């Protein structure tokens, strides 16, 4: 049953082949037997899930079901769910029970999706390996000695191991796409502003965007379409009409102009990843697409620009954790300042503290112009590079991550080397573009992701290209074997 896609599960539910309660129990059992090893879930909400599943079965019987009614899903533990513990993988929120639900959660509740639980992640979504969780690292089902990527590592590992058929994730600098690449799953983050940020715990507000990690572009399209849309509760929610995605991915690749930036294939890219990505580009070419070289002359500055802008916004957003209104509070504070300082130092892990400090530094008097404003100016140049490229091409493609999944502990001592892992993803985030990662083969037994980037509001074009690729290849159906599977 866990080998079925969301679309197959949906058809099976409609045909009465199985009930939502049955598949919900099946996936809960899988979580029960694998989660000790993979650590993909922080919280499993069995009782709530079975209630939702029973309600979904009623709805299917009554003939008022949506395609996602009765489908088990998971939410990254950054999304507030009313009455459910929401931790952001931080000691700061270890016992925080959300008093309201995120808009995304409400939308998926409304169509009758069944939430199995909350997935592990890097603390406050800050990390590229899922090693920064106060609940311990997530392991990659393809090789349990390796990381699943981050920050949505729990969602990606859970889908890769089929502990859940599909999951939400969030992407600030690559946190949906990079773990999707490292676990052989399909991940998409839409254009900034497409999905409401209401109830999604904030990291960097000009970059944060929810997304989906699933088994295929077709599955992801169905869930993404449900999550998108204008929301008055998010001040930067886009009012652009949402395109239909589900059932709208057919077409062909003839005449599609694909931009291939040379900077994506420069130093730092591993040979194994390069070979698989080039082979994937050849598949697009053989299906009638045209490959064109495009230039992104400022992209090499996207990592430093991102690591100025994102921590600056983080230091501002995370100032709300003061030990007073919610979150961890230190014992026996001697005065208010001591309460603030010790609560925050005890509650936040090392990477979060590092980003708060870096962000405070780049915003401080004397350094604001040299770092923060400078990075914002570079951000405009990076955005302009992409806009110029999209005058010549429909999509841009390249690798999602420079390497396959790396061993746990390999980069934890060196923050700059960890940050450089985000080289292909953060520029896209600074520009607010929609982008997906789809599996395009294995290198030494580990998955490689192809990065598909579209112009603003062109989610359908991105997913459609991914779907066409998945019609003529079977990389997305490869599954891990061995103890993590």
């Amino acid at each position, binding site marked *: 049953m866990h080998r079925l896609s969301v679309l197959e599960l949906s058809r099976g539910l409609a045909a009465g082949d199985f009930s939502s309660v049955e598949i919900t129990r099946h996936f809960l059992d899988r979580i029960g037997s694998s989660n000790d090893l993979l650590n993909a879930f922080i919280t499993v909400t069995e009782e709530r899930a079975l209630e939702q599943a029973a309600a979904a079965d009623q709805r299917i019987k009554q003939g008022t079901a949506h395609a996602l009614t009765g489908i088990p899903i998971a939410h990254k533990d950054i999304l507030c769910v009313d009455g459910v513990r929401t931790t952001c993988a931080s000691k700061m929120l270890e016992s925080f029970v959300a008093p309201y639900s995120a808009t995304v959660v409400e939308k998926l509740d409304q169509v009758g999706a069944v939430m199995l639980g909350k997935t592990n992640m890097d603390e406050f979504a800050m990390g590229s390996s899922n090693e920064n969780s106060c609940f311990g690292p997530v392991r990659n089902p393809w090789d349990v000695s390796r990381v699943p990527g981050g920050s949505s590592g729990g969602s990606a590992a859970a889908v890769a191991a089929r502990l859940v058929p599909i999951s939400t994730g969030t992407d600030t600098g690559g946190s949906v796409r990079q773990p999707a690449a490292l676990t052989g799953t399909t991940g998409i983050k839409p254009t900034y502003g497409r999905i409401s940020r209401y109830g999604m715990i904030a990291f960097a507000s000009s970059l944060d965007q929810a997304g989906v990690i699933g088994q295929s572009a077709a599955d992801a399209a169905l869930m993404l379409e449900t999550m998108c849309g204008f929301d008055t509760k998010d001040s930067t929610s886009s009012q652009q009409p949402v395109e239909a995605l589900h059932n709208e991915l057919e077409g062909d690749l003839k005449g599609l102009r694909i931009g291939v930036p040379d900077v994506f294939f420069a130093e730092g890219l591993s040979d194994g990843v390069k070979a698989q990505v080039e082979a994937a580009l050849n598949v697009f070419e053989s299906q009638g697409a045209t490959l064109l070289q495009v230039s992104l002359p400022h992209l090499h500055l996207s990592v430093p620009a991102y690591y100025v802008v994102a921590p600056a916004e983080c230091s501002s957003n995370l100032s709300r954790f003061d030990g007073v209104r919610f979150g961890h509070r230190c014992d026996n504070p001697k005065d208010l300042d001591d309460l603030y300082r010790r609560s925050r130092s005890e509650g936040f892990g090392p990477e979060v503290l590092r980003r708060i400090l870096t962000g405070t530094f780049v915003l401080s008097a004397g350094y604001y112009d040299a770092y923060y404003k400078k990075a914002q100016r570079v951000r*405009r*140049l990076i955005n302009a590079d992409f806009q110029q490229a999209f005058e010549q091409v429909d999509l841009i493609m390249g690798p999602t991550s420079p390497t396959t999944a790396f061993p746990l502990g390999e980069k934890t001592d060196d923050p700059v080397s960890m940050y450089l892992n985000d080289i292909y993803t953060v520029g896209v985030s600074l520009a607010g573009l929609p982008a997906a990662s789809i599996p395009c083969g294995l290198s030494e037994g580990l998955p490689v992701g192809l990065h598909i980037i579209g112009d603003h509001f062109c989610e359908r074009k991105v997913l459609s290209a991914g779907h066409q690729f998945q019609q003529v290849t079977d990389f997305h159906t490869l599954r891990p074997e061995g103890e993590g599977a």
Partner: protein
Amino acid sequence: MSLTREQVEKIATLARVELAADVTTEVTENMSRIIDFFDTLNDVDTDGVAPMAHPLDMTQRLRADEVSEHNERDKFQQSSAQTEGGLYLVPKVIE
């Protein structure tokens, strides 16, 4: 540029975090490496380029000033470590 210990301590005060002495040494080293890395931004001339704060050219929406939420103080205060009579309690600020 590299940061001094005193600079990091000042930043920690601004950010309202407490750093233990041994942690400060490590943080100073790591932050210096990160800030050094930021200096590569100076490779490009950005004179005359307007800072970009946001990926989409959008203006802040306005709405009518009408009550849209109801009072859920009791529910929200359940997340707090210490409240009394609807107030959040903190150590005495004024003697």
